[in-house]
Structure formats: structure tokens, C-alpha cells
């Protein structure tokens, strides 16, 4: 095939054939002659050439871009999760203040907590025992009385008693200093049950000031009893 292109520009099929190098040499030269005489048309053909080259480049490029895109997506998800967790922690902290309430004697406990049935537990010599002891309390019970029999002599200031909720997310704890055993040799504290339900509680007792001996430690899990009269 030969012949020059006259007034009419080469059609799309001819452009495509030229860019795919499918035209006869003489026809291709005629095409180029037309391009040289018509710069606007030549620019259009050149843009088509760039589009073809760009498309050919894309298959090799896509996996890289997909990898980069995947990495960015994962980072965005991680950042989002971090933000959500941080917000959640802040929210939980605002709902549940970090300090845990503990009363040294029954007289300090608010009357509202004492109106229901009382629940008490006595813990004796459980040093080294890491098992969790489960306590099931009636729903209307307001306070848990914990009696601990220390197995070591008190320090100069008596005992220090630590009570902590073993929550990895929101740790709440309280330490009572200058705690002294009663006539029967027990330390007694009163804890609001509502703060403890569903949590694992760790109670530690040490001479105060610390003597370096191993702590006397207990772990408790508190739950409400399932009852039909629950409102």
C-alpha cells in the first residue's frame, strides 16, 4: 500500500496501525509526511504514542503500586485502630477513675452499701498461690468484706495492703498504709462490690515499711449470682 494522505487526516485505524508498526514502509512514510505538515495532528498521534507506552509500562508497575498501596492501607488501619484504642482508653478512664475505693472499717462504708446482704471472705496463708478464687455474691450485696490473716510480723507501721484490679486496659488500684491487725490477727477491708464484679482482684499484704520478704498475695474473681428476683 502506498500513497500520500491528502486533505483528510489519517483515520483512527491508520493511526493505530502506524503506532503498532503495522503500516507498509511507504505508507508509514506518507503518514509521517502528513504529521510533519500538520503539527496539531502530530501532537495528537504523539499523545496516542505516550498512552500506548504508558499502558505497556503499567503491568510491570502495578504490583509495585499494589504493594505500596497495601502497605499504606495496613498502616492506615493500624493508625485507625491505635486511635480507636487510645480514644477508648481515654473514655474508660473518664468513666472509671483510676483509684479504687477501699474502706478500712465498717463505719467508713456508706450506709447505702451496707443496706443489702453482706459478703465476706477470709483469706489465710495463701502465699505463693496464684490460683484465682471465685466469689459469687448476691445481687443486692453492696460491699465485700475481705479478711486477711497475715503470715508475717507487721512492720514498724503495721501492714501495707494493696488492692488492684488486674485489668490490662484500665488498671485500678489502691494501697492502704498503716493497716493493723485486729485482736484476732486479721486485717479487714471493705470493697464496693459494684467496682469488682467481672474483674480479677489481686490483694497483697506486706509489712510496712517493706522488709524485702515475699508478698502475701491472693487473687479473687467476683461475680453476681444469677437469681430470678433480679430486677
Amino acid at each position, binding site marked *: 500500500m502506498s500513497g500520500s494522505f491528502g*486533505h483528510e487526516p489519517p483515520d483512527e485505524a491508520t493511526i493505530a496501525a502506524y503506532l503498532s508498526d503495522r503500516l507498509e514502509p511507504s505508507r508509514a512514510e506518507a503518514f509521517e509526511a502528513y504529521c*510533519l*505538515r500538520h503539527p496539531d*495532528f502530530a501532537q495528537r498521534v504523539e*499523545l496516542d504514542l505516550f498512552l500506548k507506552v*504508558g*499502558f*505497556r509500562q503499567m503491568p*510491570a508497575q*502495578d504490583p509495585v503500586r499494589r504493594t505500596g498501596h497495601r502497605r499504606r492501607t495496613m498502616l492506615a488501619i493500624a493508625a485507625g485502630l491505635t486511635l480507636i484504642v487510645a480514644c477508648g482508653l481515654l473514655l474508660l478512664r473518664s468513666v472509671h477513675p483510676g483509684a479504687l475505693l477501699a474502706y478500712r472499717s465498717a463505719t467508713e462504708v456508706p450506709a447505702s452499701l451496707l443496706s443489702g446482704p453482706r459478703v465476706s471472705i477470709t483469706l489465710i496463708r495463701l502465699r505463693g498461690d496464684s490460683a484465682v478464687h471465685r466469689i459469687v455474691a448476691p445481687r443486692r450485696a453492696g460491699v465485700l468484706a475481705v479478711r486477711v490473716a497475715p503470715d508475717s510480723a507487721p512492720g514498724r507501721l503495721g501492714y501495707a495492703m494493696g488492692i488492684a484490679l488486674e485489668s490490662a486496659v484500665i488498671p485500678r488500684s489502691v494501697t492502704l498504709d498503716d493497716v493493723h491487725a485486729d485482736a484476732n490477727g486479721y486485717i479487714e477491708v471493705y470493697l464496693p462490690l459494684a467496682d469488682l464484679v467481672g474483674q480479677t482482684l489481686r490483694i497483697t499484704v506486706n509489712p510496712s515499711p517493706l522488709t524485702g520478704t515475699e508478698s502475701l498475695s491472693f487473687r479473687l474473681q467476683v461475680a453476681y449470682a444469677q437469681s430470678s428476683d433480679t430486677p
Partner: protein
Amino acid sequence: MSTDEVGAQTDLSNRALCVRIRAGDFGAETLLITRLQSGLRLVANRAAGGDLELSRDVCQETLVILLRRLRTTGLDDPSGLEAFAAQTARNLVIAARRKNQRQRTATDSEALAFVPDPRPLVQEEEASGRLGVLVHRLLAELPGDRDRAILTRFYLKEHDKSEICRDLNLTDLGFNQVIFRARNRLRQLLIQAGIDKRDLLDSEGGS
């Protein structure tokens, strides 16, 4: 207007252009460059087997040779300006390949049995890599999958326009609109990216 009339007008323009360049008119030189550079790059690109970088260099060199000639002795037949430019570009590509071949021979005797490497040159990969990024962006901006399918089939898979129109139930006009928009968007992206802006995009004239 007949083909002969168009040719005559071009002859006249070429003749006038050559006279003005001979007279030291820099504006005429700029006009010449604007008129010929895209076409010259296409000529050189085909002669160079798709080496975009070489075709750009050859285009520049061709224009330098052409301007020197027009400033000094001029052309016997200005109507053959485009043909002269095209043949100069083709000769330069051949010379560049011979030079490249000689350099290979000098460093490696086995290159005497030179066989053209079908793989793209590094420079071409770099240039086309940038084009790939732009085309990828262009595709991402398209509103629908149909336009992406049209462009991919036409430019990458080299399907016939009629085949694409038939498969996608498209009219000629619909097809042309998609292609037209793609060209214009690529032109904008090239301008934004600063790729070959001075060389390729002096004129905003489109299809």
C-alpha cells in the same frame, strides 16, 4: 480546497519561512520548531524502534542541522522541507545505531555479531515509567469501568476500534469522545508533571 491547493499553500509557507530564517528571524525559527518537532519525534521513534529517548535526541539534532542549513545555504526546494527534515532524522538514527554498534564492538568482540536487543533501553524504561504513572493516574480518574476498558483494549491490547465499539455497544462518536478526553487529560498530566513540556506541548492544538 483541493490537495494541490493545500500543497501550494504549504510550499509558500515553507518558502516564506526559509526566507525569514535566512534573514535571521528568530520568530520564524521558533515557528519551524513548533511545526516540525512532534512529527520529527514520530519519524525518529519509528526509525529507532520505539526508543523514546533516542527519538527526542535525534529530533533536537535534526532541528539544529536544519536551522544551520536554513541560516546559511538554505534549501534548493523549500517545498521539500519536511522530507528533508524526515530524512535527516532517519539518517541520524542510523548513525546513532552504527555508533552504538561500533562502541559495542570496541568493548566486546562478540558484538560483531550484533543482534538488536528487543528489550527496551534503560532510558526508555525510565521515560515510559513516568508515562506509566501518568496513565495509571489517568485510569484511576475515569468515572467508569467502561472507559477504562475502552482505553485498555485500544491502547494496550490493540483491539480494533470497530471490535471495541461492537463489544461495548458504542457508537463511533462515543468511542471518539473517550479517546479525545483521554488524550486531553494526558496532555494536562504531562504539563503538570513537567514532562517534555517545552518540547511537546508548545501548542495546545488538539485533534
